[in-house]
């Protein structure tokens, strides 16, 4: 069990948890979406600034457990500077990864690999998913012309 514990709380996870990236709220943003995890009470606020087709900046403010905070921090680090399309592709990839599907993790996203330890704790998978499903929903809303504030509740 201590091995399993260490596998979930890998050093890279704890590093993101202690100093989450993207934790500063943005002055200006084009997308905002809030995520909730009803079963454990995690709450997440996401803001995205878009420039053309690129995620120019992102804020992920998470009140939750180490896993949801670390996962949100990784998201902020990875999708900043990516195109909207690429950001969505990455978010779907993480979702597949956490659902136990075989996926190839790109070299510049090795932190994501650390999230795999969560799979041994089924009730915690949704903590790791929270930020990613909130991003997908937020980007979808933006592309469909609903840039207004939304709320995403993870039930998967």
């Amino acid at each position, binding site marked *: *069990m201590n091995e399993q514990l260490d596998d979930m709380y890998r050093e890279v996870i704890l590093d993101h948890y202690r100093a989450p990236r993207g934790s500063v709220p943005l002055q200006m943003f084009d997308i905002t979406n809030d995520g909730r995890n009803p079963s454990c009470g995690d709450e997440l606020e996401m803001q995205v600034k878009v420039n053309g087709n690129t995620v120019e900046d992102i804020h992920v403010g998470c009140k*939750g457990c180490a896993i949801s905070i670390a996962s949100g921090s990784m998201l902020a680090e990875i999708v900043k500077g990516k195109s909207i399309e690429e950001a969505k592709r990455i978010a779907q990839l993480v979702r597949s990864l956490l659902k136990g599907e075989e996926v190839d993790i790109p070299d510049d996203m090795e932190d994501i690999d650390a999230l795999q330890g969560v799979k041994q704790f089924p009730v915690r998978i949704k903590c790791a998913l929270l930020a990613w499903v909130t991003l997908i929903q937020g980007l979808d809303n933006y592309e469909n012309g609903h840039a207004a504030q939304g709320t995403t509740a993870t039930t998967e």
Partner: protein
Amino acid sequence: MQTNTQKNQAVTKKDGTPECRLDHAVIREDFPILKTEVNGHPLVYLDSAATSQKPRVVINAILEYYRKKNANIHRGLHFLAEEATAAYEKTRQHVARFIGGVDPSQIIFTRGTTEGINLVAYTWGEENIKEGDEIVITEMEHHANLVPWVMLAKKKNAVLKRIPITFCGHLDMSNIDEIITEKTKIVCATHMSNVLGTINPIGELAEKAHAVGALLLADGAQSVPHMAVDVKELDADFYTFSSHKMLGPTGVGILYGKREILEAMPPFNMGGEMIDQVYFDKVTWAELPHKFEAGTPDIADVVAFDAALTYLEELGMDRVRDHEHYLTDYTIKRLGELPGLEIQGPQEAEGRGGAISFTDPDLHPHDISTFLDSKGIAIRAGHHCAQPLLRILGKVATARASLYVYNDESDVDRLVQALTDMRRYFGV
């Protein structure tokens, strides 16, 4: 084989004075599951407020029932049917004695506390709550004693009023006469909070309710397992609790009600067992308590619940309370040694039970629970089915350690050590 006198013999304090406490080491032997090893550590079970563990006598009683007595109750005219019926009714009589000596016909078996409250809301509530009437609850209710009343109030256009809590986690009774008024029809309150541990003044609330012609329903899920309860002395109109939190099997709850109120209420579930005469165009109801027990109940678990009641009586409910009072005091003091750790609810053992919620300034309760589990320690983390209360406390979740007869200082010491290790592990 240990005798019961050994279980509850007086423990001598360090200064030589006797103390009414239970002999934890002897009691532990009666609970096979406590021998479990979890992640390489001996199990420390601190989640009895969610469900208690079961002594061997209860587990054996379930086996014994299926081996020797199994039949459907009340209907059959054969040997086994009579055996099963007698055993089932014996538990009812035992429960009636256990809560202060009421008539067994006032004891209705349900699936649990939740069903007991729903029964009252759907039958008594449906008939008696009208537009503009007031239903009074407290801010520390479990969803089981909250959601049925929220929905009833919505349906009937009634008003849901609440008794607030003080900063210290007690009910704020200072404006009680403005909350319980002539418009109040029922006051619904937990006897002991599952989050804060607070023991509420049910007797006083019953008096206030009766003074305006209202009824008092008490949720006793956390109180009956841990202290002597006399429903007549409290003058409660309804009192409901669960077997599984008091060493008994899951699937069995008890609703006690005053006779004239139960008799005037329509039935809850319709079907077999709860009828007197049935025609295609009319039906008459069975006498109490059968009017409220449609269908085949959880016979085996009701029968085995008798053994749990006997076990608790042999320990003595006053000694159970003393033991937990001592251990609650010890737990609060030890947790107080941890920097930044915040205990919710009353900060002293007086006036509270052994459900102790706490938060760490830097770590989420789910991370706390996962870490403790890796050390073999079972606690609860989350909103404890009391979201409105958690909002008032300003928390999204808390960690909760809860105590029972099989716990002692060594369990608390393991908890405190693990919480210390945890902060080092997470580097906070």
